[in-house]
């Protein structure tokens, strides 16, 4: 559980949070970040004193002038700034996007697939998908229906044991999805909506406490499903070939070029042990019952 005085830690030596397999130290004095973290990371465990911190990140105003004029936010990782600054209103989103980048570029002990991942009854589901395919919306809806959140943005498949290692974090929702999920579940907690980002309107949903608490328990891949949201479509499940699935998984794997043969073997094993499907849907409840094991 986060301490009461989050802001003091964030402004001082850093708030050290355990996020999946990583301990992340976050520093920031920006109110958007303080509010976002307080609100959406409320259930996350604090790293123990003396633990090795994997990643140090910092969100700050680029220059004193920028605090007053066309306010901006900058992201740094271990003192390096990989991005151009964004408008200040996107501070919390920049933390989320920045952390995605840090993990995708530094955690090559995993094959990191651009996909949502959830688990039920010990079965891991991977939903790879281009932006706009509805994978985050589907993931949010599943998670609100009692499935365990492994990740909404990156499925991390360990090169050592072939399991999906959870990294549950706030689920990113875009544009119409924000209202869809609000209507879908009464007790969902959604953070501030930020308008006009590169991805349109963006908001983050607090991950369920049960998923955060069991973040150290990996899940075996059971199904790889490529979702497509299509308005008014009947829910349609179709089997696809393992070869085709492997190719598409590789295309969606951020660090595939770095992993070489180890990456190929890891993804091939995941495909080998999984059902491979496409899923076209428009009705969320229908889609969820189709996925139930």
């Amino acid at each position: 559980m986060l301490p009461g005085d989050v802001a003091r830690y964030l402004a001082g030596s850093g708030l050290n949070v355990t996020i999946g397999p990583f301990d992340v130290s976050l520093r920031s004095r920006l109110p958007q970040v303080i509010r976002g973290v307080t609100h959406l990371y409320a259930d996350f465990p604090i790293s123990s004193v003396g633990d090795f911190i994997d990643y140090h990140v910092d969100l700050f105003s680029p220059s004193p002038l920028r605090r007053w004029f066309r306010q901006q936010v900058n992201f740094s990782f271990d003192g390096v700034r990989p991005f151009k600054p964004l408008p200040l209103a996107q501070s919390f989103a920049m933390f989320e996007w920045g952390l995605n980048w840090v993990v995708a570029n530094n955690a090559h002990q995993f094959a990191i697939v651009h996909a949502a991942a959830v688990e039920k009854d010990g079965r891991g589901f991977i939903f790879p998908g281009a932006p706009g395919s509805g994978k985050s919306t589907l993931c949010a809806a599943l998670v609100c229906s009692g499935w365990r959140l492994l990740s909404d943005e990156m499925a991390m498949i360990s090169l050592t044991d072939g399991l999906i290692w959870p990294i549950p974090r706030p689920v990113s929702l875009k544009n119409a999805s924000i209202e869809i999920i609000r209507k879908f579940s009464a007790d969902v907690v959604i953070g501030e909506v930020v308008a006009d980002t590169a991805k349109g309107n963006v908001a983050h949903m607090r991950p369920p406490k049960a998923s955060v608490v069991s973040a150290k328990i990996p899940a075996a891949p059971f199904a790889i499903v490529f979702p497509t949201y299509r308005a008014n479509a009947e829910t349609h499940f179709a089997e696809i070939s393992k070869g085709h699935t492997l190719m598409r998984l590789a295309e969606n794997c951020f660090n595939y070029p770095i992993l070489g043969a180890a990456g190929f073997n890891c993804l091939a094993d995941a495909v080998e042990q999984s059902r491979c499907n496409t899923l076209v849907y428009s009705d969320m409840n229908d889609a969820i019952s189709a996925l139930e094991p």
Partner: protein
Amino acid sequence: MSIAVFEKHPLIRYLRDPGSAVAFSASDWERLFRAARHGYLLSRVAWLAKRDQFWEHLPKKIQFHLKSAFRVAESQATSVNWEVVQIHKALSESNIPFVLLKGAAYIKDQFAPAQGRLLSDVDILVPKDRLTEAEKALYSHGWFPTKLDAYDQRYYREWMHELPPMQHLGRGTTLDVHHTILPPTALLKPDVEKLWSDVCAIENTKDLFVLSPVDMVLHSATHLFHDGELEHGLRDLVDIDALIGQFSRQDQFFQRLITRADELDLGRPLYYALKYCRGFLRTPVPDDIFLRVSAYNNRSMAIRSLMELVVLESIGSVLKDQPSVTTHASQFAMYVRSHYLRMPLRLLLPHLLRKQFISDRSH
């Protein structure tokens, strides 16, 4: 300020004596990772842990990160080797010989700095009278100049020792084509013909070369102290340290190094390289050799102190937990200095002014 300020830094302790890491605390590791990521040295750190066989004795989480960094270097080595094959294919069709420089040379021909070496581009040297042909041959194989405006294009062609950087359309890799190792306008005038006369062919090729061992050290030193902005300063020192470690087993290596530095007018960069390799990394350079090379440090006392300050600040910048104002100032000073060494003031001032004010527009 002296080198002593940096001696306690875990990355420096590690580079001098990798085995000392088994006693590192969590916060030592955090400082090491921060500096090593910043300085492009994490993969080297990983490789040293493997070489010295204490990997298994490190905490699990540290092993994870080192394994990850190791994979990055492995994949880069694969892609550099492939890149060299492609460049060779493009240039050999026109019978243009070329020399691999720096990272690509170390990796392709397995010199000591190769292990865990990261690089952002491939550098090659082609004979000046074949430059235009080389450019054409590379165009026809998919390398194109990166987006540069007319000013940059002209700046490179008139005043620099290389073509504007090229990028491969398909693979996105960057290639720097040099025709000498310092710009024609530079104060030091190494004769590139002399480098060509000593190059070594890579196994099974007739037109693909690396520099001779002494020239490889001298080029790395020149690049570091007279051509760059010292942003990868510590990494470059690690390269030179590894090259010296490998070559100093050869007969009369240091004597040949000094004679060659004198021939090529590169005594001063060699002095700086040996001084800071010894200072930061404890590179074993015999005292009598260092004394002889020190004769090239014939600048006034004031210049020497300023240089010391600026070099320590710049190379040491990756070791700082928080960047300071003096770091930025020193990096800027090194940037100005490296340009000053490359071109006379009448060319330099308009160039720096333009870069300072025009580059801001693109933001």
